């Protein structure tokens, strides 16, 4: 999976770090704990910048390379923080044959933001996602926890306007 490195400054707090270390401790001895640790870390920080990976490496005894290797292998691990408004465009097959590619193009055009990145002010992030399983509603986009289905390119501007 190709990943864009982040340009947003790391703003982790001491409390977050303590919480993460506590999670690592509670998983000590669990076989194959690296994935659950990374998932917990992403829950705590919202993403996995190199600073967080370093904490994990330090406290698990794994090398930073190993932590980085696992973090970059899986698409769900984000190296970029999600925007305040996080947009996902489903590019599963059912959505694709119903035109989700055009919808993504239109969102990219309106926001001026390439897929897989976050605006520098942290407001919007855009992702082309794998199938989210709402194929009955294809084509589908998600904005934070809201799902918009059966869309056409013409609906995009109106929906985005609600969030600007």
């Amino acid at each position, binding site marked *: *999976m*190709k990943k864009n490195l982040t340009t947003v400054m790391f703003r982790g707090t001491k409390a977050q770090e303590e919480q993460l270390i506590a999670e690592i401790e509670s998983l000590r001895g669990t*076989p*194959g*704990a*690296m*994935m*659950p640790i*990374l*998932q917990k870390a992403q829950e705590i920080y919202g993403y996995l910048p190199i600073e967080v990976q370093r904490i994990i490496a330090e406290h698990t005894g794994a090398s930073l390379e190993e932590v980085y*290797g*696992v973090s970059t*292998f*899986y*698409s*769900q*691990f984000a190296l970029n923080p999600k925007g305040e408004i996080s947009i996902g465009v489903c*590019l*599963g*097959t*059912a959505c*694709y*044959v*119903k035109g989700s590619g*055009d919808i993504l193009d239109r969102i990219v055009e309106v926001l001026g933001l390439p897929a897989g990145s976050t605006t520098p002010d942290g407001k919007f992030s855009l992702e082309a*996602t*794998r*199938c*989210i*399983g*709402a*194929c*009955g*509603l*294809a084509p*589908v986009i998600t904005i934070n926890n809201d*799902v918009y*289905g059966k869309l056409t*390119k*013409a609906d995009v501007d109106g929906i985005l306007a609600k969030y600007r």
Partner: protein
Amino acid sequence: MVRSHVLICGGTGCTSSGSVKILDAMNAEIAAKGLQDEIKVVGTGCFGLCALGPIMIVYPEGTFYSCVKVEDVPEIVEEHLLKGRPVERLVYHETKSEDPHHATSLSETAFYKKQKRVALRNCGVINPENIDEYIAMDGYAALGKVLTEMTPDDVIQTILDSGLRGRGGGGFPTGLKWKFASGNRGNVTKYVACNADEGDPGAFMDRSILEGDPHAVIEAMAIAAYAIGANEGYVYVRAEYPIAIHRLEVAIKQAREYGLLGKNIFGTGFDFDMFIRFGAGAFVCGEETALMTSIEGNRGEPRPRPPFPAVKGLFGQPTVLNNVETYANIPQIILNGVDWFKSMGTEKSKGTKVFALGGKITNTGLVEVPMGTTLREVIEEIGGGIPNGKTFKAAQTGGPSGGCIPASLIDTPIDYDNLIAIGSMMGSGGLIVMDEDTCMVDLARFFLDFTVDESCGKCTPCRVGTRRLLEILDKIIAGNGEMEDLDRLEELSNYIKSASLCGLGQTAPNPVLSTLRYFRDEYVAHIVDKKCPAGVCKSLLQYKIDPDKCKGCTLCARKCPVGAISGTVKNPHTIDTAKCIKCGACMDSCKFKAIYKE
């Protein structure tokens, strides 16, 4: 005394269109009318007819409401539940009947008539978050029977005799897999695992089973564990499925409370417990060895086989890994017997198969049919055909590993071997329907783009080969293809298939090969005529204005972002194709449908 049950679908499709709010509103409305002791509201798993969601069924009448909105709830309560008059405008048209008290049974509608629900039998019927409802449907009876009446070898023999084959796509006989892992029981640590990493885009069978009937999977895993001599199980589930994960967590907790997981199950001395591990979005982790590497906490890269997981699997121990749908069949086979199961299906493919119908089809949703049902029955009868008066062009099965089935083969009975013979594969059950507006070259490119992104990079044929395939397809789509490219595609595809390490690479060229096999003319049109017959590939399209229809309103010229449209008021306009960036803004804005693409 409860006089009515209101079932509301809580599958992902209906949840996405607001069924949780409807459920809350229904409970509130019923409480407001003081009916809470008479009417029970149940959130269920998927009914299958996702296209018409959110769905609600009211029993005992069996009234099937479709496309329900929160605003409709007071009317349903007031009219139907209080006064006994179903809200006609919301009733699914296929179930409308003369007699208002007896709706046409769902099993008689075109969508359900030819279906046979085995793996999905409890989906949309029970509340998946209540173990008692599962037990009331003979839940855990199969586990009880296995533990008290059958030896582990009996169990394996039963599954072998049933002819059950893996529903994840490969079609390997499940009983054989169990047999290979069964040696040396009691002396070796073994594992059972469940593959719920449903990565095939457009497929949601496994998710619906986990959401609608999670206990069936738990029960079946316990049975498998007993059969091979394992005491621990892992479910590897996609993190993208929050509802499925939640229900599985609830189900495991309830099963533990009831003593159906844990130590000394049914007082037989058999111990079994299970754990959930979340995937993190890697398609390759659907491959068995990659899945196990991922559970172990590493990059999910596959490893060479042999040794097979039955010998050396999870944490280096013998492991049985089955797919969710495979497991969902197990308790039924134990309870109803081998003969019952073998009565469904074709000679070499027994039982049923769940398909996720998607794409250009009226009834998108989840269907389960006996093996051997033809594609025509699934698409035209159950699926309700192609919407908007378009024609069927092809169906795609098996996702990025599969191929397409053209209209000429629509009468093929669907089973494992037939699909392989025509160059596709069963896959996990995604079935995407395409009409004349789908470009098959673009579709092949779509899948290759997916595999290039998802190739783990461990072996060269897959890592580099798929990228080269994608480049050739890009070249053809851009209008720069040459006829020799078709030979290159074929040659390279065959190398990738034979030399890749795992299933991902070995099947990645299938979308290319099968579109080349059945839609070669479309490739030729892209290469020789520089045209995209379906009107999809932008580089080969030209936007044009029909001078007879154009009224000269100038709207398109004002909308065009690059000033490619010229003309004077009230005279037909023209598009400068050299300047045109093919954004389609003019076509969207034209009120007279005077702009077309070719």
